[in-house]
């Protein structure tokens, strides 16, 4: 598939599941350094499960997930529905600064440099001037931007995103997508679970198509072909409507309330 020497995370015949119920079986492959990979598949295909396995929140019941080549770099992970309490009394800037947790820890003070980086990250996601806002005052799209600013601050070598655009409007997802593309240009490795195949074709050079097992993994135009999509559908039985037409999932065009 790919040259293992370039691999940041190598999956060696891994199986993942919960309480003995297998979700992914016998998946092998590599996330190549500096690659930008979309992970697609039907509902219940094991996409989120795979990300949890790579982060280390879930141990494979079989096989090895080799992260040894991370060269001391870290993994940043944005779950699909983070169990975040959005009414929590915390400011935007403090939320972003959590990205420096590894430097600051339990008791360290945020340095002036940290604060400067956090401000710049907020500017990069289009939230300049929101530093002192409380997060409960933000819209869903704005809050997702804050989480992306935190990802920027984490400065991770491998970034894993689980359906990062599912609750945000079109403009926000376009802006965040170009941010993701920029991460790749900085040499980071990015993998994102996505549903919108047009988005995948436009922005993601690599695609992993899974349906409880690997259907195809490689260049996006070679992976997202009708016979692969059909096979994925047959493997899982519950393909979403979009893939049946090999088209786009109609994403609800949420309009952010203007402030």
């Amino acid at each position, binding site marked *: 598939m790919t040259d293992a020497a370039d691999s940041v995370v190598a999956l060696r015949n891994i199986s993942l599941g919960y309480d003995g119920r297998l979700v992914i079986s016998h998946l092998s492959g590599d996330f190549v350094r500096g690659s930008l990979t979309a992970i697609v598949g039907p509902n219940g295909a094991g996409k989120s499960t795979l990300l949890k396995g790579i982060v280390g*929140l879930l141990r494979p019941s079989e096989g090895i997930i080799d992260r040894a080549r991370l060269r001391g770099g870290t*993994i940043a992970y944005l779950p699909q529905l983070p169990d*975040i*309490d959005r009414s929590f*009394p*915390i400011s935007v800037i403090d939320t972003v600064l959590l990205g420096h*947790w590894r430097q600051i820890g*339990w008791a360290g003070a945020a340095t002036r440099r940290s604060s400067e980086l956090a401000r710049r990250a907020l500017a990069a996601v289009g939230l300049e001037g929101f530093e002192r806002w409380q997060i409960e005052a933000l819209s869903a799209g704005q809050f997702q931007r804050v989480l992306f600013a935190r990802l920027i601050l984490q400065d991770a070598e491998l970034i894993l995103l689980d359906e990062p655009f599912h609750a945000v409007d079109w403009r926000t997802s376009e802006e965040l997508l170009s941010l993701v593309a920029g991460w790749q240009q900085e040499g980071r490795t990015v993998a994102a679970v996505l549903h919108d195949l047009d988005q995948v074709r436009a922005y993601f050079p690599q695609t992993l198509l899974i349906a409880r097992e690997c259907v195809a993994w490689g260049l996006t135009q070679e992976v997202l072909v009708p016979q692969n999509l059909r096979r994925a559908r047959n493997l899982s039985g519950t393909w979403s409507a979009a893939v049946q037409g090999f088209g786009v999932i109609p994403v609800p065009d949420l309009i952010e309330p203007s402030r």
Partner: protein
Amino acid sequence: MTLYGLAVAPLVEFGFMRRALVGCLALAFGCGPIGTFLVIRRMSLMGDALSHAVLPGAAIGFILGGFSLPVISLGGVAAGLLVALLSGLVTRLTPLREDASFAAFYLISLALGVLLMSTRGSNVDVLHLLFGSILAIDDPALIFIGAVASLSLMTLAVIYRPLVVECFDPGFLRTVGGGGGAVHAIFLTLIVLNLVAGFQALGTLMAVGLMMLPAAAARFWVRELWALNAASSALALASAFLGLLLSYYLDLPSGPAIILVAGVAYFVSVLVGSRGSLRALYLQRRGRES
């Protein structure tokens, strides 16, 4: 009679009133922040569950040592921690949710505690353990309450940041290796310690009131976390002071009097507080309509 006379004279005159007030001051310092975290973690019923869980330990301590504070306290702490540990295990190993497993254990504890008390003590003893007697606080009890409050504040200072992140975004803390599990365990221990400190004064069933009611009321006045902590402690202290005076003048049991004053503060906050109270919501709606 002047206000000064009404509010201060009993304190000047009677040592037990002074001790009671100092004990409440210490309790308020510890209970304020702990109650605040319970509220924002949506764990309000956990405090209640743990307060019941303390009872059988205290009862065993009472049977073994009579009205000896160290033995009763030790028993209470041990039982509280045991219940926290066991229900944590049940939550982790089975599909039962945390609130349900806590409820199961505290109901068992309560029944066991009352049963143990009735085999040995008289009804008066049971009532004493359930509802406390703040006016009978002696010096060792005062020192114990003060020590627990100091320990709580110092520990909270150390675990403050991870505790906040654990409440706000536990998933994130897990991925960056922030020690969420340890923080949760330390926090549960602090709850148990404060409940045991409180039950000497207010009784096992009332102790949790000084933790929860001021914290729940504070949410209707201030927004930021430091302010919530401070406001909870201040409300707890004010309730304790007023409750003590009420119990002194009207000859009421002090524990329920204090908690009822805190309850009145809570209702007032719900009605007229500055954030999200019924009054604030009403004004907001009227502002939108006009």
